[in-house]
């Protein structure tokens, strides 16, 4: 008996609930040398801004206990060039989700307008963790009013699936999740990285050229899981869960906590085959526990609560 791994995210039907996380998989070409990308539920490409961005000055990576800090600074080739690279992914026959970034509402809109005609771009994931220049650099993702305005603007510009990627660097995430839902988002994804820093005590200076970076990897998993649990309770939208997933067991935890799909970031760096391994592992878990479909376990841990 084969299990049904398919899930629905907005207008997308994913053949399985596993995708790489944005910024951790480039445009796919590097990992295509390790496995056939058509195995993935979807592919999520690098954060894309309107114009090319050079990114932050190095060092950009610092290893921390069971995690990494990164300060890439959204290095990307800009929307026009990204469009070409996304077009090259069409052959894999899987949805391509474009992570969209900007420093103004207009920039997000321009990126979407540039990609609207690219058929291979199936969905947008709006990274609201970027600094909003008009608000003095405060991130879009911290104010429900700003999220509502941004998502409404983008909703009017596209019929494609619109996913809002929430930042964990907030006091209460639920009003932000509801604002995205009210403005017409099709799904939410979380978590982005947690703000952090690390210091080289010999050189007595920060390890990252940018001083601060974003924490990801196994270290953030319990935090991410909690956010997924909370947000999937607060909204009706499907949630794509991520943060520290390195194995099928980790992925199943997110599904049980209420995620409809999962994304894998940092773990790709450690194990280039982690995505296909997690897909196989989820199928094996379902089979061993007599489930027919992945849908049966989404949010299942909430029914039992403790015990």
């Amino acid at each position, binding site marked *: 008996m084969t299990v049904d791994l398919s899930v629905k995210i907005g207008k997308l039907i994913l053949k399985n609930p596993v995708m790489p996380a944005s910024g951790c998989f480039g445009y796919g070409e*590097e990992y295509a040398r390790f496995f056939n990308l058509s195995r993935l539920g979807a592919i999520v490409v690098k954060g894309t801004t309107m114009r090319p961005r050079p990114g932050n000055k*190095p060092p950009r990576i610092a290893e921390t206990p069971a995690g990494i800090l990164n300060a890439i600074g959204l290095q990307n080739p800009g929307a026009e060039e990204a469009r070409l690279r996304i077009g090259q992914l069409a052959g894999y026959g899987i949805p391509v989700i474009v992570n969209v970034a900007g420093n103004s509402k207009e920039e997000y809109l321009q990126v979407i307008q540039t990609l609207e005609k690219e058929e291979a771009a199936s969905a947008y994931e709006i990274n609201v963790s970027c600094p909003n220049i008009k608000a003095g650099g405060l991130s879009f993702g911290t104010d429900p009013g700003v999220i509502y305005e941004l998502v409404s603007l983008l909703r009017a510009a596209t019929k494609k699936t619109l996913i809002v990627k929430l930042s964990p660097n907030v006091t209460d995430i639920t009003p932000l999740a509801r604002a995205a839902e009210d403005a017409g988002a099709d799904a939410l994804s979380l978590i982005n990285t947690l703000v952090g820093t690390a210091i080289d005590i010999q050189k007595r200076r920060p390890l990252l050229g940018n001083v601060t970076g974003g924490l990801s990897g196994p270290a953030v998993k319990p935090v991410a899981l909690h956010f997924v649990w909370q947000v999937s309770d607060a909204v009706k939208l499907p949630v794509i869960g991520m943060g520290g997933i390195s194995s099928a067991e980790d992925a199943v935890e997110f599904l049980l906590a209420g995620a409809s799909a999962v994304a894998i970031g940092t773990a790709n*760096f450690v194990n280039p085959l982690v995505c296909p391994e997690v897909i196989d592992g989820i199928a094996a878990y379902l089979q061993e526990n007599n489930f027919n479909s992945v849908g049966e376990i989404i949010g299942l841990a909430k029914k039992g609560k403790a015990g």
Partner: protein
Amino acid sequence: MRKQAMEIVQQEKVGKDIYRLTLAGGLAAVPGQFVQVGVSSTADPLLKRPFSIHYCNGSRLVLLYQVTGRGTNLLAAKKEGEILEVTGPLGRGFPLPEEGRAVVVAGGMGAAPLYYLLHALKSAGRDVTFLYGARTAAALVLQEQYRSLVRHYAAATDDGSFGRQGPVTELLQEELSRRPGVVFACGPEPMLRGAAAIAAGFNSRCFVSLEARMACGVGACLGCVIPGADGRYRRVCADGPVFAAEEVFPA
């Protein structure tokens, strides 16, 4: 390029804090490429460590590494028979010249990938000079191994405990004034910049192998970039680690 589990067949101490690690399993690589090695089976430390290919053939992979921190300490504690997860070969290696002489310059642990390069140059029948520099005599590990592969050999140490006292780049200056050739260099960045400047003075082509902190090692995360001579960033793992000197060092 793939991920494979490789068994340790030999772990030898060849100098103070320096080990030669032989793994069973084939790898088809060009000199200058590297591998990422898992040093822990737990999530901490998380990242694989990048090491140059010291030597490889159809049945074994040899690494030469120095213990400098937590990950390399864990690696040095591994015993024969243990299994390591290895991803590779990664990156772009040294371009082998069609003809002519080669001058290969090593600074300290920078010698590691050059051994495989010397092998390839020897097989191609090239006339090769190897210049080996280090802080002190004890850090000039495996000298006989390198010497046996080349026609001309010279060493230098900062403290004068072996060979010429002074930077290995002085030997390069003298060598190029006697016999021109393509320069291949690996070592600390100041040494590489020095070698590139000297090669430029003789109109010799120069290729340098660089290091950077890495996460993915395959070109996907943009974590390992360095500014190129044109100011645009290059990924050390995928655009390098070997670069034409003029691509990364401004003239």
